[in-house]
């Protein structure tokens, strides 16, 4: 008996009550929505924090409660939430959960119960993190990288209970991500439907799959560093803590290695960039192909590029540490690997552009976000080439140039994809369309606004404006123009921040009042749009699993009337399709 037949069985655990259907749900679609809503909620908290920080930088002293400690706490929580609790959770837990089983033709994840646990652990980690706002001393203010010794040394904001809750929350998050990740990887490998070969999977699945593999191999380093730092903080061990004099007193720590933490952290931290980027690459490839009515250019190369980027991402981590004090030869090695990553990444950008080339481009809201992503990722990627070289990085290190770079490449770019993907798949999730006009307004303000925010930051970086400062007055090397620019950036940031309310309103309104979408509003070929019901019912596929006959990108195929061929259509069906399609056209 082939174990693949496991997938054939009817979905088990058909939920009967409200609680099993929507709360303790084992259905991947419900879990995905739970993940997404939680991530968006906690992301809003981080968005508000960034607004507070910008107000302090742009208009110093405008917030009475903003002292240096509060500023650092806002900065730390903003970074940590955005990278881990919003983007990672949303891409893997949200999009991964929803799309993987539907796109590969499975009834659910292979272990639904574990999948459910994954969400509840994630929620717990979010609650623990948010609890740190309410403990004495407040949340950690160590910067999102949490570098020791300062992160757990008295005097740093939140070095009491805040950092402990942060580390515990991270450990819980990693448990959640591991439970989810095991499910995603096993599902992609072992539970594909008839005819769904690896090279027929949509690039979305490839991106999320590879990102999950990275998560399973990178999060252990963060887990270990969190455990060790917890012990340093709570038990007085000295893994990361060197001999130190604090306020004239020798501390109790001795002989630890702060740079060990940096290595462990960035061994996680750099793959983390791609845990966020690879799903975005995958999703955006599908958006571009569908909305340009063309097959993705160079599908196999796109897959191999995803794999190559994933592998290379594990050997570049120390490019975050050029100024940390390393052997210079390490810098040479890591600069080389960093620049090598540009090859598969550039290949992907070329292929996106070549997919657009002479396509039938529909400027729908998802397509606008996808195009914006290509631009933004290109800008962010090019500044990455500067920072990847040791000799250029050293003067730019810890300036706003770095802030501009990573926000462009792994902040704005993935978020644009998140928006595009939500506008694209919302009809699948709810059966209704998001409002188009609100969507376009949301797009233009967000897109232009982010450029108004981050383009000037590159210039500020060149001026030498350091990052992580609480206030910039009184430094002679910072000219007046920088202060004016800071005020400008703050205004832009606040406008973009408030605009997101438009998006939330659109989500809420369209869920109940949106225009009914029908089963396949974008006329997409991939499998998730071919479910018998929209939104898909429990078990996704009714009595029989679908059979896949082609890849996910048959758009505008010559000689076929309809401009897309669903993956479920066989060659045999094709004859029927072209014969009676004339009648359908009338």
């Amino acid at each position, binding site marked *: 008996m082939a174990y693949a037949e496991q997938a054939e069985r009817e979905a088990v655990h058909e939920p009967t009550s409200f609680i099993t259907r929507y709360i303790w749900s084992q259905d991947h679609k419900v879990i995905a929505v739970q993940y997404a809503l939680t991530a968006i909620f906690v992301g809003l908290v981080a968005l508000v924090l960034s607004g507070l920080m910008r107000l302090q930088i742009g208009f110093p002293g405008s917030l009475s409660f903003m002292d240096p400690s509060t500023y650092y706490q806002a900065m730390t929580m903003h970074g940590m939430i955005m990278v881990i609790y919003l983007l990672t959770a949303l891409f893997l837990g949200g999009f991964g959960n929803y799309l993987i089983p539907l796109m590969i033709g499975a009834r659910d994840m292979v272990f639904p119960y574990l999948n459910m646990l994954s969400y509840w652990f994630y929620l717990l980690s979010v609650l623990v993190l948010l609890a740190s706002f309410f403990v004495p001393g407040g949340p950690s203010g160590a910067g999102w990288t949490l570098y020791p010794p300062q992160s757990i040394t008295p005097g740093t904001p939140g070095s009491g209970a805040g950092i402990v809750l942060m580390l515990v929350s991270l450990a819980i998050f990693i448990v959640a991500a591991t439970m989810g990740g095991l499910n995603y990887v*096993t599902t992609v490998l072992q539970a594909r439907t008839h005819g769904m070969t690896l090279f027929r999977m949509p690039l979305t699945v490839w991106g999320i799959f590879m990102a999950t593999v990275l998560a*399973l191999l990178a999060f252990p380093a963060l887990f270990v560093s969190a455990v060790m730092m917890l012990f340093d903080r709570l038990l007085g061990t000295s893994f990361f803590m060197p001999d130190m004099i604090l306020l004239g007193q020798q501390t109790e720590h001795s002989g630890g290695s702060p740079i*060990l933490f940096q290595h462990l952290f960035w061994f996680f931290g750099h793959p983390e960039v791609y845990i966020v980027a690879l799903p975005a690459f995958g999703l955006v490839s599908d958006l571009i192909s569908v909305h340009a009515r063309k097959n993705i250019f160079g599908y196999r190369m796109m897959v191999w590029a995803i794999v190559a980027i994933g592998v290379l991402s594990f050997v570049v981590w120390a490019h975050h540490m050029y100024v940390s004090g390393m052997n210079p030869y390490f810098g040479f090695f890591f600069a080389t690997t960093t620049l090598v990553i540009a090859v598969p990444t550039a290949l992907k950008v070329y292929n996106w552009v070549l997919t657009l080339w002479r396509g039938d481009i529909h400027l729908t809201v998802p397509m606008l976000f996808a195009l914006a992503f290509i631009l933004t990722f290109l800008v962010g990627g090019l500044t990455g080439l500067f920072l990847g070289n040791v000799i250029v990085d050293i003067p730019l290190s810890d300036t706003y140039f770095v802030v501009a770079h990573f926000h462009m490449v792994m902040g704005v770019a993935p978020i644009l994809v998140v928006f595009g993907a939500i506008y694209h798949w919302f009809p699948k999730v709810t059966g209704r369309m998001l409002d188009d006009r609100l969507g376009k307004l949301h797009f233009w303000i967000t897109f232009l606004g982010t450029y108004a925010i981050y383009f000037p930051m590159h210039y500020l970086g060149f001026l030498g404006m350091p990052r992580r400062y609480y206030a910039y007055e009184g430094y002679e090397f910072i000219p007046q123009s920088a202060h004016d620019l800071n005020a400008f950036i703050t205004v832009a940031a606040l406008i973009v921040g408030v605009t997101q309310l438009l998006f939330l309103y659109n989500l809420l309104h369209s869920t109940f009042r949106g225009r009914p979408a029908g089963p396949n509003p974008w006329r997409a070929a991939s499998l998730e749009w071919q479910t018998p019901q929209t939104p898909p019912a429990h078990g996704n596929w009714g009595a029989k699993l679908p059979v896949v006959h082609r890849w996910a990108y048959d758009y505008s195929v010559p000689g076929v009337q309809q401009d897309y061929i669903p993956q479920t259509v066989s060659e045999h069906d094709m004859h029927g399709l072209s014969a009676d399609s004339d009648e359908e056209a009338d």
Partner: protein
Amino acid sequence: MDTGSKRTQGVLSRSWQVLYHDWASDKDAFKQVPWGKAMMWIFLVSDTFVFSCFLIGYMTVRMTTVEPWPVPSEVFALTIAGQSIPLILIAVMTFILISSSGTMAMAVNFGYRRNRGATAALLLATALLGASFVGMQAFEWSKLIHEGVRPWGNPMGAAQFGAAFFTITGFHGMHVSIGVLYLLAVAFKVWRGDLDRAGNYQLVEIAGLYWHFVDLVWVFIFAFFYLW
């Protein structure tokens, strides 16, 4: 000679093709591998990274600390009948854990033969060996604590010795303890006849993967912590 090497080449490229087709085909990449087993393998790869990071962290702090590192063969010596024997307890613990891998492998074998009683008994034996390992570890911990070894310092030398020792052996001991509970649960299911009703003994083999992994990790801890 020439034709021979060509034939080898042909076989090689054919086996590559088979591998490629297996991987790229529909339904499942690993043929005849149940979901639980695939997932356990992936989990173990991830867990390998956890232990690797712990061990690399330990080696790094052992190199960065300026205090002398306590000599393991002296710290871990037991005085039996007036004679100090280095590493004797660790040797016995290692022997027991490796032996438990043997009983585990036999349990899997009897599982394939659908021998319910022998499988359950061997699983139980494995769990008992594991529990005795944890018991000896508890003895070792209490002995060291009694001698003044703490996570934050010890009388023999570098403070990182205690920190790394308790962290790494503790984390491994936790894995063994969880494994013991896991094996007992599986043994109970086997004994009750659940697996005969399910029609296969995969559950035993999957538990076996975990158990062998925990043993293998111990070999590395033994080599890097006790023998170095």
